[in-house]
């Protein structure tokens, strides 16, 4: 057994970090750390990690990429022990922080500052950032990302997207950034303050094809770039400090550009939608937005070759994981409700018409989850995952929506009013199959 320090080191950026970050709040108490030892080990690890962080800052040169991991060659549906620890922590955070904040965020079409700060304190960025930049990532962690997305979305899909949006930026920079871009952009995500940033891919047109972008970047006379086009339903749009914007470059193909919020030629407006409102969706209007040459992620060098297809696939895996979480939330909610709701003298769940609908939800949630996990685990191993990702998205879009709809149906009129969250899940689950990019697993 690998020692516990190693395991905790990997998740040292995770919920345990809250202990020190928010030492004065009551949040740490809510995490109910079982063993006092966990905390002690954590403190030791944390001290060590800080040293690594400062030492490695100077190192540059080749960009740091996360390598594919090795499997055991055995079929296994279980997450690792470390992933289970993390999943449980995320589940508690989702139950105790996200779910209570969900309604207000949905009404306001914006995430609460406190939620973003608490979410940042989970330290998830540390899991995505390579060790040489002070993070804890050693290899690809698509499965871990998927488990996190599932659990957060089980609390609330909109807020989950808000919390995951900066991580997508981190993932993209790790995957495609130059060494210089990594050194410049990654460390701030490990700081004490939340860094709002988002990845913008989706464009507002029917039958949107993620593989052919209308947003374009053209060379400027001073050697920089000018971006033209519109990006929509961008998470944290209303507050992100910078965006990673996907645009087509003539002769090069699609690329990502780092664009600061206050860049001349970029206007941001709110873009509230049917659901996922807690993510604070925004629309980016690019009218010749000028950025420097080095704003292009990875530059024009081979090592930074950007792969839009991989981005689209990883985004679809992440959105599918969000759908799994939201669909699971529906199941969790309708079981006790239908067991308690009496009609014609019996719980309505004693009738097959109701019971079978719930059984169907249970079967389809499990099926969706397995498809997402398979795509994610293939991605971690460096296997081809385009097709599994497509199948996962298809299934999560259709069955997820069916589950959202059945959730409202099972509550009848009560499902239609905002006293219960099922109407929100109905709206949120329609995002799967519509929203592209924005998240990365």
């Amino acid at each position, binding site marked *: 057994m690998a020692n516990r320090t190693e395991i905790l080191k990997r998740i040292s950026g995770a919920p345990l970090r809250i202990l020190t970050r928010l030492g004065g709040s009551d949040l740490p108490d809510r995490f109910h750390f079982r063993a006092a030892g966990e905390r002690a080990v954590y403190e030791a690890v944390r001290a060590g990690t800080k040293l690594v962080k400062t030492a490695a800052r100077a190192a540059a040169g080749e960009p740091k990429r996360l390598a594919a991991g090795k499997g055991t060659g055995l079929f296994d549906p279980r997450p690792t022990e*470390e992933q289970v620890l993390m999943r449980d922590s995320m589940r508690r955070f989702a139950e105790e922080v996200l779910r209570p904040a969900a309604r207000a965020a949905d009404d306001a079409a914006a995430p609460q500052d406190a939620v973003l700060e608490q979410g940042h304190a989970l330290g998830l960025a540390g899991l995505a950032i390579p060790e040489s930049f002070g993070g804890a990532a050693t290899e690809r962690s698509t499965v871990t990302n998927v488990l996190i997305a599932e659990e957060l979305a089980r609390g609330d899909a909109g807020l989950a997207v808000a919390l995951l949006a900066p991580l997508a930026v981190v993932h993209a920079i790790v995957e495609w950034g130059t060494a210089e871009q990594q050194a410049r952009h990654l460390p701030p995500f490990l700081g004490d303050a939340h860094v709002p940033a988002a990845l913008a891919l989706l464009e507002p047109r029917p039958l949107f094809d993620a593989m052919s972008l209308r947003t374009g970047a053209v060379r400027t006379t001073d050697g920089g770039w000018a971006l033209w086009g519109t990006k929509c339903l961008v998470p944290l749009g209303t507050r992100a400090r910078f965006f990673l914007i996907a645009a087509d470059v003539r002769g090069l193909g699609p690329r990502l550009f780092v664009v600061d919020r206050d860049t001349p030629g970029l206007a941001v407006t709110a873009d509230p939608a049917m659901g996922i409102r807690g993510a604070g969706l925004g629309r980016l209007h690019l009218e010749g937005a000028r950025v420097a040459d080095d704003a292009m992620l990875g530059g024009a060098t081979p090592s930074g070759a950007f792969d839009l297809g991989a981005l689209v696939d990883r985004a679809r895996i992440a959105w599918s994981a969000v759908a799994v979480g939201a669909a699971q939330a529906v199941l969790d909610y309708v079981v006790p409700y239908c067991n308690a709701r009496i009609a014609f003298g019996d719980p309505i769940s004693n009738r*097959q018409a109701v019971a079978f609908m719930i059984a169907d939800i249970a079967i389809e949630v499990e099926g969706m989850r397995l498809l997402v996990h398979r795509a994610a685990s293939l991605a971690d191993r460096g296997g081809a995952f385009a097709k599994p990702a497509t199948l996962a998205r*298809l299934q999560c879009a259709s069955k997820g929506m069916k589950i959202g709809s059945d959730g409202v149906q099972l509550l009848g009129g009560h499902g239609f009013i905002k006293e219960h969250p099922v109407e929100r899940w109905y709206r949120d689950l329609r995002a799967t199959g519509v929203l592209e990019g924005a998240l990365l697993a």
Partner: protein
Amino acid sequence: MIDLEIPKRLRPLVDQAHAIATSVFRPISRKYDLAEHSYPKELDLLAAILDGVNDGGAGASASQLKRDTTPEEPGSDGAPKNRNGGNLATVLGMMELCWGDVGLALTIPRQGLGNAALSAVGTDEQKARFGKRWIAMAITEPNAGSDSAAIRTHARLDGDSWVISGEKIFVTAGDRAEAVIVWATLDAALGRAAIKSFFVPKGSPGMKVVRLDHKLGIRASDTATIVFDECRVPKENILGSAEIETDKSFAGAMKTFDNTRPVIAAMACGVARAAIDRTREILKDAQPRDANLRSPWLGSNADAELARLEAELEVARLLTLNAAWMADNRIPNSLQASMAKAKAGRAVTEITLRCVELCGATGYAEADLLEKWARDAKILDIFEGTQQIQMLVVARRVLGKTSAELR
């Protein structure tokens, strides 16, 4: 560590099963669909090979569903042990065989459902004594199908013999098998607790195959009606205890299903895979352009429909592998076994019928196998528990209800 791929160790087995499906099953598939009730003698050689493989301990078969002697793989990082054993091997092998022909797979000698039941509930001594035979399973009666607790076939002890009387229908391989495991009640008034299973060799006095059914599909497999008229078998032929205790013993008998339901689900996955593969071949001739995976709106309606069917099949397949893996690792899997069976049963029916539709006249005519697969598919949503029974099992588990509350 999450990994849902076919384990490396079992890939040779999958390849072998696929080769059998291709070179043994497919060439005679239509022949025995048309010649219902004639025995596919081509399978004798195959059965002999499978026996050899199983005796070598490396096989995937009905009798390996529970008896699992594969060594446990050490877990990495102190993780719990992970066993990829007989159940996983069996469902993976079955998917491939049924990609070839499900009717033929159901009538491979010595691979009957009775063999699975014996290895699930028989004593070691019984397994040794009965195990080398082809054993069918007789549960359903003219007036008791899904409600297997309502069976009326009864058994009474008379000296050193059990005396069994009643009528069993829908016995898969009931004519060809060398023995039948029969469910009978010791006292109909006592309900489930009194239901026991008995090993009845062919030729036992009072046992008679009275009829072979003509069917919609799986016509290569015989389906028999067997009458037991004061049929006598030795006292030791009862499987499990002769005591009427609680509902426990019935639950024990039902446990067989936890192992066999994923196998039926695997059959469904194999047939569905065959239909999708064939449809892709046929449609490729009709429209040579590959569907663009990442741009779903740009493809044809047929592309989109095939992708949707693929996703449904993939769900069924992964639910099946998951349920079998749980059985291998001794994790209770009634819920997951029923989920797999429910999903795979409805998926294979939808997929094969849709593939016939997509391929038009080519799909509907006997010149191709698609129409046959669509007929074969339907039974997979019925035997070993209908769709509706699986939904009851799932619903009761998810909602925490008894069979009295949710009927």
